[in-house]
C-alpha cells in the first residue's frame, strides 16, 4: 500500500519537503515504519530516533499498526508555547 507521511519543522527542512510517500506492506508497525523511513531517508535517521509518529492526529506507540487511509505524521520533539 502507498502511504504519505507529513513532515514538520527540522524534519521538513532536512528532507526539503512537507510529505514523504512510501510503498509499504499491509500490517506495518510504527516501529517498522520508522526504520523504513530511516533507511530510505538517512538524513532523517537521527531525528527519527527522537521523534514520535501520529496516526489520525493521535500519538502512536511502536506497536501501533499503520492502515492505508491513516493520516500519518512524523512528530519531532515539540517546542510550542
Amino acid at each position, binding site marked *: 500500500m502507498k502511504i504519505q507521511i507529513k513532515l514538520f519543522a*527540522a524534519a521538513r527542512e532536512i528532507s526539503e519537503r512537507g510529505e514523504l510517500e512510501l510503498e509499504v506492506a499491509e500490517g506495518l508497525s510504527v516501529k517498522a515504519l520508522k526504520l523504513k523511513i530511516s533507511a530510505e531517508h538517512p538524513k532523517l535517521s537521527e531525528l527519527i530516533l527522537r521523534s514520535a509518529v501520529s496516526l489520525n492526529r493521535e500519538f502512536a506507540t511502536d506497536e501501533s499498526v499503520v492502515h492505508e487511509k491513516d493520516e500519518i505524521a512524523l512528530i*519531532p520533539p515539540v517546542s*510550542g*508555547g
Partner: protein
Amino acid sequence: MISITSDAIDPLEVLESVKSNQAGASVLFVGSTRQFTGEKETLQLEYECYESMAIAKIQQLVDAARDKWNIEQCSVVHRIGVVGLGESSIVVAVSTGHRKESFEAAAWLVDELKIQVPIWKKEFWADGKTEWVHPSGDQRRIPENINASRGAS
C-alpha cells in the same frame, strides 16, 4: 476559545473570553519572545504547527483540565509564523471560582502544551544562525498519562 492564528494575539480578547459571574478569579498567561537566553540574543522566533492535531491536542488538554479543576471558562490561543521580540506566541486564560485553581490550571495547561501539542519553534539568533528547537524527552509517555488520568476521574 481554542485557536491557532498567524495574527498578533489580543490578550484582552482572550481574557474577556473567560469572563463569568461565577468566577472570582481569572489568570492570564502570556508567553512572549525573550531577547536573551543566557548570553545568546534572539532576533525573532518562528512557529510551525500540525494544525489539525494541535487543535485536537489542545482540546484534550482543556478537557483534562476541566476534569482536574472546577473551571468556569478556559481559552488557549497559539500564534504561528514569525513572532518578533516582545510579541506573544501563546496566551492562556482560565477562570475559576477561587484563585488557587486558576493558577494551577493555567500553569498546567502551559506545561502540558509544551510537551504534547505538535507546535515547533525556530530560533533566529542574532549571530545569523537558525535552529529548530527539538528538546529531548519521550513524547509518547504523555498522551498515555492523559488518557489514564482522564479514565480514572
